[in-house]
């Protein structure tokens, strides 16, 4: 059954009752009726390499947890800095994620603890591709789902609608709609040779033809001059002690600055690697803890910068890691994982969706957290509510995925 939200079911029903006939429910009619994405801005943070969700969101009261992870379990909350930070009777945050606690408390941070892809691959690269296309049943070169989402808004835009920081050309942004891609750190703030009028004119003349390369170059010059101008102010603020441009938090700052400056950029993408902790992943401190603390800083930054009612930050990783630690105090490739959502309309301060615990009978292949919610169904909830995306578009975005009513409370109503 395709994705179909209660809202649209109601609208369809109203249309039918009003005598509009079945045609009112046809995809074309809906697409014309509903102005897509009238409000929202979306930022996706992709944790490449399979972040260990069971360390980030600790199921501390489950007796299996400490048993499965004798040397890497995060200690149950006791109020001290080296133990997990209790959220409720079942879950707690990794101590390195302490900066997220205020967000949880104010109700703008929510989590779905056992989500993932229906595809069972344990390959990072194949799984990441599925998360980026939103098509877990195929490994084709289909455009990224963020690009397809942007295309609903503006089918043939001349200006970029998507912004990526850091990666050369992430698949999730690729497709017909132009994406603006900037490097990490200070490199993005420099106009380079294009600050020189003579050099710029000469280069533009060299790329004066109408082939793909020349067009890309001319677009690039324009976009680069804008980036350097817009980020210069950000840089000055950073130099005045507002935090540097290094690390994921720095990427977040630059992303926010450019999206603020150009309202047409409504979809942003950040990523961070280094989560593939097969060996010595650590516990309250160590390798994984330092990655998590960088993530926490970035999410706090994003929460600050994306505070409009329609803003949403989505955080996910291609799959989870084994529930039990392996022979080298690390974890191997697993299945289900936590997905994190931040925003004013997220029903935060709550764990959403199903959770069955870590008892042996509840694990996938006896080793992993199962996938209890399709990642596309999780994403569909806020996309539907915050972006006003109708059923027909949701079904186009994530063909084959089903609406998951058990997650209907994920986004605040009204």
């Amino acid at each position, binding site marked *: 059954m395709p994705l179909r939200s209660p809202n649209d079911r109601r609208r369809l029903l109203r249309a039918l009752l009003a005598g509009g006939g079945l045609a009112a429910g046809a995809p074309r009619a809906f697409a014309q009726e509903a102005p897509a994405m009238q409000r929202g801005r979306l930022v996706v943070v992709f944790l*490449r*390499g399979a972040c260990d969700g069971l360390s980030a969101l600790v199921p501390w009261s489950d007796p299996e947890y400490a048993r499965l992870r004798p*040397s890497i379990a995060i200690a149950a909350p006791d109020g001290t800095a080296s133990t997990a930070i209790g959220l409720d009777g079942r879950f707690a945050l990794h101590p390195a994620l302490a900066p997220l606690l205020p967000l949880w408390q104010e109700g703008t941070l929510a989590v779905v603890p056992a989500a993932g892809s229906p595809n069972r691959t*344990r*390959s*990072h*690269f*194949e799984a990441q591709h599925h998360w980026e296309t939103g098509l877990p049943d195929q*490994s084709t070169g289909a455009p990224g789902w963020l690009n397809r989402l942007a295309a609903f808004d503006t089918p043939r835009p001349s200006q970029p609608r998507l912004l990526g920081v*850091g*990666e*050369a*050309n992430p698949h999730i942004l*690729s497709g017909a709609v132009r*994406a*603006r*891609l*900037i*490097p*990490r*750190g200070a*490199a993005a703030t*420099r106009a*380079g*040779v*294009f600050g020189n009028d*003579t*050099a710029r004119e*000469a*280069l533009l*003349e*060299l*790329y*004066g*033809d109408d*082939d*793909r*390369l*020349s067009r*890309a*170059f001319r*677009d*690039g*010059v324009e*976009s*680069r001059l804008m*980036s350097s101008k817009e980020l210069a102010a950000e840089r000055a603020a950073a130099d005045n002690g507002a935090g540097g441009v290094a690390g994921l938090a720095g990427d977040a700052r630059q992303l926010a600055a450019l999206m603020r400056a150009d309202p047409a950029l409504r979809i942003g993408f950040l990523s961070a*690697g*280094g989560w*593939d902790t*097969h*060996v010595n992943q650590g516990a309250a401190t160590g390798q994984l803890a330092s990655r998590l603390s960088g993530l926490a800083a970035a999410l706090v930054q994003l929460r600050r910068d994306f505070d409009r009612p329609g803003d949403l930050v989505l955080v996910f990783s291609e799959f989870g890691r084994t529930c039990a630690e*392996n*022979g*080298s*105090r*690390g974890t*191997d*490739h697993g299945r289900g994982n936590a997905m994190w959502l931040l925003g004013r309309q997220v029903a935060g301060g709550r764990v959403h969706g199903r959770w069955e615990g870590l008892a042996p009978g509840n694990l996938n*292949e006896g080793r992993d957290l199962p996938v209890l919610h399709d990642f596309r169904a999780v994403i569909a909830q806020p996309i539907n509510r915050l972006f006003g995306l109708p059923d027909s578009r949701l079904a186009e975005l994530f063909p084959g995925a089903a609406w998951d009513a058990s997650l209907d409370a994920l986004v605040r109503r009204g």
Partner: protein
Amino acid sequence: MTRPPLLQFPAAGLSRAALLASLLAGLAWATPGSGAGLASASPAAPSGTQLTDVQAIWRATTRLGYWPSPEQVTAIRVHPGGARGWALAEVDRAFDTSREPARVPEALHAVTAPLPTIFAEVRREREARLLAAQTAQDAGPMGVVVPSAAAPAVDSYLRTSGQQAAAWRMLGCSDPSIEHPLLARLTEFWFNHLNVFAGRATVRPFTGHYAVHAIRPNVLGRFEDLLIASARHPAMLFYLDQNQNVAEGTPGLNGRVRGLNENYARELLELHTLGVDGGYTQQDVRELARVLTGWTVDPAAPSGFRFVSRLHDAGGKVVLGRPFGGEGLAQGEREGVEAIAMLAANRATARRIALRLARFFVADEPPTALVDRLSAEYLATRGDLRRMMRLLVASPEFWDPANELFKTPYDFACSALGASAQAAPGNRAPGIGLALSFLVAAGQPVNGWQTPDGYRTDAATWLSPEALTRRADLAAALARGMGDPEYLLVFYGPRTLERLGRLPAGTRGALALAAPDFMRK
């Protein structure tokens, strides 16, 4: 500002042929009798299904190396078999060179230091760092660790060995007097196929040695030998945690129990050999990990490798339906060697290697017929990479004008370095430093891809607007002191030449390196 024309003739009304002839006349390598043939064919004009001679030279030198050095261009022009004949001979020359030691300059000695020396340096540095931390801790108030100004610079070996490994790659790809260009290309390709990441501190000091001693000697040998060399090298053993992969229940330190680590076994199947759709299961991953238990590093051995029986799972295993380690079968280290040979001989591996080579050298979406022939050659020759390369460079697909490739940032950095040094020889270090920084910002740092899949090399990944403009910055920085690079301009299209001709003389070097013609290979 006066803008003298680039070439000493009126730009208006000039035919392409005349322009090219005029360019060629001034070139040292233009041999008698050949100018007319070249001049009659424009590098940029469509010419049916054949590359022109000039286009063929550009293709041969930029794909089977990085840039058209004048020596190479001359060699192609005088070769009786033309560009194709030269390319075939080039494969053999690269093979011969791969059997000789790499010409590593003294300044980059860490790259080729013996493995026990590298291990010893790493250990010395780790101990110095611990000592420094301890000293600082002892001195600090209330147990707070404070960095001590008197502490020795303890991370210098880690840092310099990583820098030297990256510098060696840049030197090798840009300077034909240091490294054979095709050998540099193949080292790039196979390093990337069997990627390791210098960002991991345990891996970093070994990346240079890995490139020079595990990859380079094997790039035109048998694929199986290359796989084994990579499997036994400390860089790979550390990178994919194979040094941690031991039999379940092996006693560890402090009463801990150690066990399997699947990381290397998985990537050996998924990336190095069969590919993700190669027909293996999670059970195969686990069984292969068991087969490989006990393969680990040896800091004292010249090879850096040892097999430790005590850590090996001696039980029976089944990988892809074939039993290992049981009665009457290979045992111990031999299990892993035979498993790797089995994977190398698999049809899925042949297909994967064929596809990746064709993508790298021919087109982002290579013709299926070529991939089929390469794959068949792999199977017929038991993975002889030299035979595959000979087939590839002799194939019509390699020379087909339709099979275009766009330079990756690495291609661009190497070719811009080489071409600028040609015009302004001197100390290479500043240029290499600039190129390495450029690659970091471009998202393709040398030895710096974190995950074992290696860099993508297609235009879809690298041809993006802002990134393209950043190439002009490197071009400008490298071109300081560079004159008009005639040896490049012979390959450029008439529109670019005309545009360059209108520019001030001092700027043409930078603009030639930043021109669209220079971005394709």
